[in-house]
């Protein structure tokens, strides 16, 4: 396979990580297609792939830090404890400041690309690009419903290429696929059952043989805005060639199902309405969401598409695009999907995201000097504080809550000794102002979404943080025990629970 570049190719401030043969060639060469889908990025640009989580120097640094911490705790536990807590408190303050700044920047508005219905519809068909819609599906018996939802997309059918990506051993979905009414623009692609068995591998396999100019992904449960493809086309033209992708907003159609879905709605609302536009305003890399990101296909090929070894391949791709010299915009169009209504399923999903964030951070700081030159200081700050800080500080939350509870219930002087005055007052700032400001963000988001019914959920957000802590802790543990394990989120629970409730009512 002599098609991949070993050294990233830089032209016009844009980096190409992978040189992929034309789609028509790959369509004929199945072995090469499989190889590129599974190992393309890892072979051509291993520094950008999560195939191995830690490089040598990272392993050494982690080992030295761990040994230093253990030695400190053995030789002088109090001093070591104070130093660690002081560093963590400083990290909390930095993360809080960064989040507040992002939120403020995002809440000002003006960073989301808005395309009106009229403008979207006004583009003549002959000026629209060909568009590939990738839909990775796994154990999805209701494929027919999914296709019906995608049929609502307002886009000329002769320019549309919908690809349902099925795993070869997924007989349940294959049976459902056979029952779909055949359509010219919908094709079923069977992805070989080879490791890594992940969504990004399936996306690569489906994408690399597509000849379209633009490409997007939807999940099986998604219900996109019918004009979203047209809006994305207009947005990309408006933004210009420096933009490789626009990320549409995600919302939920079952947001009122229970308290968890309400919290999730606020979480996503804040993320897509304020945080992502804030990142755009700051010029920091934008971690993409799992669906509804609309790419220029040529750029996606050049940056190596999705890393099949990364469990948050979407966030990783956002960073890789930024490092390659491209920007990501936020599109004012909403895809509705299912909010996870089950707490255990939610923890599994969130822990995968957190694990992927840490994985992504470790991948992108392998060459600190290079990444600083590619992202700039603000971008690196975003990478450290936002991508690594979010899961790691969430994982530490439980430790500090436990310390607080232990102090209030025992007044143990050993706990007081860990907090000399400076650390104590900074910690109090985090505890009081930090928690209040995060609560305020929730209330603000409820107001912004014009959803007064979400207000009680916004005020009860600390309980949601408890779930976040569990997910973060699980992520950190799993990063050590199973770094590339893809924890599948079960979808369709909204439907199942509605059916069960109806059955219960009927009986």
């Amino acid at each position, binding site marked *: 396979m002599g098609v991949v570049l070993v050294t990233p190719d830089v032209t016009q401030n844009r980096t190409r990580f992978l040189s992929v043969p034309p789609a028509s060639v790959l369509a004929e060469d199945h072995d090469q297609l499989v190889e590129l889908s599974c190992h393309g990025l890892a072979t051509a640009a291993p520094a950008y792939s999560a195939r191995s989580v830690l490089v040598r120097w990272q392993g050494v640094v982690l080992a030295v830090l761990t040994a230093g911490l253990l030695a400190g705790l053995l030789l002088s536990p109090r001093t070591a404890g104070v130093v660690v807590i002081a560093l963590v408190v400083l990290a909390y303050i930095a993360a809080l400041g960064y989040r507040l700044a992002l939120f403020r920047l995002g809440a000002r508005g003006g960073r989301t690309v808005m395309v009106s219905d009229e403008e979207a519809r006004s583009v003549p068909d002959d000026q629209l690009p060909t568009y590939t819609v990738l839909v990775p599906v796994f154990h999805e018996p209701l494929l027919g419903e999914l296709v019906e939802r995608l049929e609502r997309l307002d886009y000329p059918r002769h320019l549309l290429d919908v690809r349902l990506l099925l795993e070869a051993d997924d007989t349940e979905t294959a049976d459902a696929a056979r029952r779909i009414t055949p359509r010219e623009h919908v094709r079923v692609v069977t992805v070989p059952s080879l490791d890594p068995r992940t969504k990004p591998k399936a996306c690569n396999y489906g994408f690399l043989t597509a000849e379209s100019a633009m490409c997007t992904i939807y999940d099986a449960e998604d219900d996109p805005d019918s004009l979203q493809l047209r809006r994305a086309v207009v947005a990309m033209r408006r933004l210009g060639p420096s933009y490789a992708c626009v990320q549409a907003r995600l919302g939920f159609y079952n947001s009122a199902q229970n308290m968890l879905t309400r919290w999730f709605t606020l979480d996503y609302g804040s993320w897509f309405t304020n945080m992502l536009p804030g990142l755009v305003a700051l010029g920091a890399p934008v971690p993409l969401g799992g669906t509804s990101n609309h790419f220029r296909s040529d750029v996606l090929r050049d940056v190596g598409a999705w890393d099949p070894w990364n469990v948050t391949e979407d966030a990783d791709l956002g960073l890789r695009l930024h490092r390659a010299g491209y920007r990501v915009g936020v599109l004012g169009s909403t895809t509705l999907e299912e909010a996870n209504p*089950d707490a*255990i399923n939610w923890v599994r999903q969130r822990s995968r995201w957190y694990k992927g964030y840490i994985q992504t951070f470790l991948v992108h700081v392998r060459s600190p000097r290079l990444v600083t030159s590619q992202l700039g200081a603000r971008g690196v700050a975003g990478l450290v504080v936002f991508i690594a800080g979010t899961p790691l500080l969430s994982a530490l939350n439980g430790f500090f809550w436990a310390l607080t509870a232990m102090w209030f219930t025992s007044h*143990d002087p050993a706990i007081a000794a860990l907090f000399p005055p400076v650390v104590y007052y900074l910690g109090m700032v985090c505890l009081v102002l930090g928690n209040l400001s995060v609560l305020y963000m929730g209330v603000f988001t409820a107001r912004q979404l014009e959803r007064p019914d979400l207000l009680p959920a916004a005020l009860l957000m600390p309980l949601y943080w408890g779930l976040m802590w569990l997910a973060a802790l699980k992520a950190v543990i*799993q990063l050590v025990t199973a770094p590339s394990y893809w924890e599948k989120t079960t979808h369709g629970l909204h439907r199942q629970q509605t059916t069960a409730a109806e*059955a219960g009512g009927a009986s």
Partner: protein
Amino acid sequence: MTPPPVALPALRPLVLQHALVLGACACLWAAMPRPAASPGSWMWNIGGLALATTLVFTRRHQPHIDDRDLDRILGCGGLLTAAWAALQWDAGEHPFAAGAAATSLVLGCLFWVLGTRESCWALPAAPAPLLGAVPALGSVPAGAVGLAACLLGAVVMAARRGPVPPGQLDRVDPRRLVVPAVAASLVLLAAWGWSW
């Protein structure tokens, strides 16, 4: 719509397994040292046990999604909290400390052995023994009210949800018993004043 008939022969061993685990947890709860319990507090405890049993053995419309990592994290949390409460508050002297330590110990074991989902079903019963441990609620009239409330809740729950259907309960893996058994023994020994 008539609910499908329950396949009792297949269900019975599973119910028995889970009932044994709940029974063992009740024994752990009782084994925690505590000052002489008032009759009222025992009424709360019996009510809590009845409610927990009903909550576990009634029908649930929930997905069959479990997470072993989460079970272990929560199990460790419960066991560590029990150890902390028993040692720091001197469970043998203070009824509420004993109640909190015993409840945390039971929850830790339940999370580890039965898993997060099933333990969360029983969770609404946890306040009953804690309330019984509050000295002001330990009188016989207060205990009778607590017991009546728990039993009423259990009856309403059983009538509304119906009995546990086949497929809802999983077989208890015996290997899951080892860690909580050792940890619970250590916590109880520490609570009884054994030092090493």
